């Protein structure tokens, strides 16, 4: 591959690489650094690219290795991260002041329920072991095949299937127990609560039926509902969407809250 070809491939993949790394790290600053490092590493290793995989797979492999190194020493989040972050936000007047400011002034400051669904998935998926989170993202969001994920993570297809199966099972069980969008008894109502704050004139029930995941909640099985959730996430780029500025601010808040929480929690 020539440097011109690499530049072209990188440009094509960079949007997905950014969102992928953001979803793994939950940090905008780390994402920018790691995307840059991916480019540097790719140019360094250009001669070792043997076209045994596509350039996109190769670039994702470099990015995944860098992201894994970045996260290796950090603890995983907890599955009730959104409860902890909500409590912290409610006791921090500055958080809502900033969020309202973004909402009022940024062209990417809208609040949209489907974007919150994607945000919520990013946070909760960080409670999975890293290999499970990464495999799930690569398969369900970036649509790589199992064999390609095995190349990216330098693992076997059997292990990738294990990560996918276990990661999916855990996420399905967490959403089934928490998400009020898909289950009446769900304990998490943050979509509707935040929609009430940012879009007070909207009727939540009218908005929610526009989302297939919520529309099919009463009749579809858990597996299918998870697939519909993934469809929502695939349709959103967290850096360019209508709600990007608001959701990135929210993600930054959750990351800081989680870092503090994990520091205090003996584990």
């Amino acid at each position, binding site marked *: 591959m020539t440097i011109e070809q690499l530049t072209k491939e990188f440009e094509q993949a960079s949007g997905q690489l950014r969102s992928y790394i953001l979803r793994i790290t939950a940090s905008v600053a780390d994402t920018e650094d790691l995307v840059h490092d991916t480019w540097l590493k790719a140019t360094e290793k250009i001669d070792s690219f043997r076209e045994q995989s596509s350039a996109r797979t190769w670039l994702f492999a470099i990015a995944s290795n860098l992201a894994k190194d970045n996260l290796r020493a950090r603890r995983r989040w907890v599955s009730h991260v959104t409860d902890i972050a909500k409590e912290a936000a409610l006791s921090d007047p500055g958080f809502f002041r900033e969020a309202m400011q973004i909402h009022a002034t940024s062209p990417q400051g809208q609040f949209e329920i489907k974007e919150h669904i994607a945000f919520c998935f990013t946070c909760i998926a960080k409670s999975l072991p890293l290999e499970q989170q990464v495999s799930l993202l690569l398969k369900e969001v970036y649509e790589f095949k199992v064999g390609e994920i095995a190349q990216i993570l330098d693992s*076997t297809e059997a292990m990738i299937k294990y990560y996918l199966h276990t990661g999916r099972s855990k996420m399905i069980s967490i959403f089934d127990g928490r998400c009020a969008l898909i289950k009446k008894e769900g304990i998490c109502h943050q979509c509707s609560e935040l929609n009430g704050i940012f879009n007070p004139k909207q009727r939540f029930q009218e908005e929610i039926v526009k989302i297939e995941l919520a529309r099919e909640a009463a009749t579809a099985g858990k597996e299918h509902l998870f697939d519909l959730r993934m469809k929502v996430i695939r349709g959103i780029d967290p850096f360019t969407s209508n709600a990007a500025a608001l959701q990135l601010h929210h993600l930054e808040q959750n990351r800081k809250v989680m870092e503090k929480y994990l520091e205090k929690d003996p584990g």
Partner: protein
Amino acid sequence: MVPTGKATTIRRTFSRETSVGIEIEADPSIIWALLTNAADFPRWNSTVLSIDGTIAPGKGIALVSTLAPKRTFKLKVKEFLPETTLVWGDAMGKRRYTLTKNTGGNTLFAMTEKIGGPLFPLFAKMIPSFDKAFEQFAGDLKKEAESILNANY
């Protein structure tokens, strides 16, 4: 050991040994991942209520099983040979898991637990039979590993 999924127990004065073997249509790596991911056990294994700790060489775990739900067994990982052998136990006994890849690409899974000691005859009658739980364990492991391998990803 014939991998029928049926448990057998050999009783002696000072010990008791229960074994089960089953053939699983899956790579040893998947079975090994299932056997060494402590927190995930209760999801697929109907004989385990919880395992706290890390299943790694020399590490300690706290296991609660359906056989004695009020007791927490504090066990130590004594052997850990990836994709081949896992042994955990305490002063009373040891449980050994072995994985053997056969020529057809399947895995022979065997699990043996030996309990005993000088005071064993005093307690022997109070310890329930492991046979049913062993058969359930092996059956659950086979079902989970095969469903992972055959999942339509």
